[in-house]
């Protein structure tokens, strides 16, 4: 399988067909090179490497996106983490663990996003007005 096909398959396995089809539909001539690049590089190479299983790669991804504060990507990867077999409790522990290194505000934002996504997926109970923690 070539790098693009391997990347597309991994991306679909992790993020779901719906997400990938939507990303493809939205691709323009301006964004096409970027879509091609991340399919081959991020998904075809890195996410496809042996050495760590997808559950563990999801742990790594949640920790680093929390530390970076990339909130849109974090929501997407909380959903992906469920698909990769992490439980809500495991996701919670990764965010707690990251909080002591990246700081409480980073974890607080991450908890609000994960609460919203996990509740929307029916994996945990819904929170208050907007699900935000203190």
């Amino acid at each position: 399988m070539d790098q693009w096909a391997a990347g597309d398959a991994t991306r679909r396995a992790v993020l779901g067909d719906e997400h990938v089809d939507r990303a493809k539909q939205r691709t323009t001539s301006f964004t096409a090179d970027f879509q091609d690049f991340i399919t081959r590089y991020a998904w075809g190479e890195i996410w496809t490497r042996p050495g760590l299983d997808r559950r563990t790669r999801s742990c790594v991804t949640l920790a680093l996106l929390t530390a970076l504060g990339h909130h849109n990507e974090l929501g997407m990867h909380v959903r992906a983490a469920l698909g990769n077999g992490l439980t809500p409790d495991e996701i919670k522990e990764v965010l707690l663990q990251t909080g002591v290194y990246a700081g409480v505000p980073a974890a607080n934002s991450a908890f609000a996003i994960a609460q919203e996504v996990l509740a929307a997926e029916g994996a945990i109970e819904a929170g208050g007005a907007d699900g935000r923690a203190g």
Partner: protein
Amino acid sequence: MGDLERGRAKYDEVYGEGAADRLLAALDGWGSDIGRYGVEFNFGEIYSRPGLDLRQRQIASIAALVTLGGVEPQLTGHIKAGLNVGLSPTEIVETIIHCVQYAGFPRTINAINVAKKVFQERGVT
């Protein structure tokens, strides 16, 4: 409330007998409160929670530290800790490589160099 004694035991489980006391002794004077917080809260609470094992916690910690960048002394410590709790060199290297697509090359290259140095010191090939 944090638990200093449980933290001391958990820290020693990760870093070896007497390590918590050495950390607390090194962070004396103006550093004593931050040293105590690290042992009491990070290790007495967070690391002592069920839900993730110590290997998974080190993987998450290494990912956060690689991504933060500029924290090479702490990354050195956590790569050693990862080996101590049973992570393989491959698992550590893969955790670092996984960060490259999100955190970029500069931080990831710095992290790989930290790992290479630790592996060399430990005689890991």
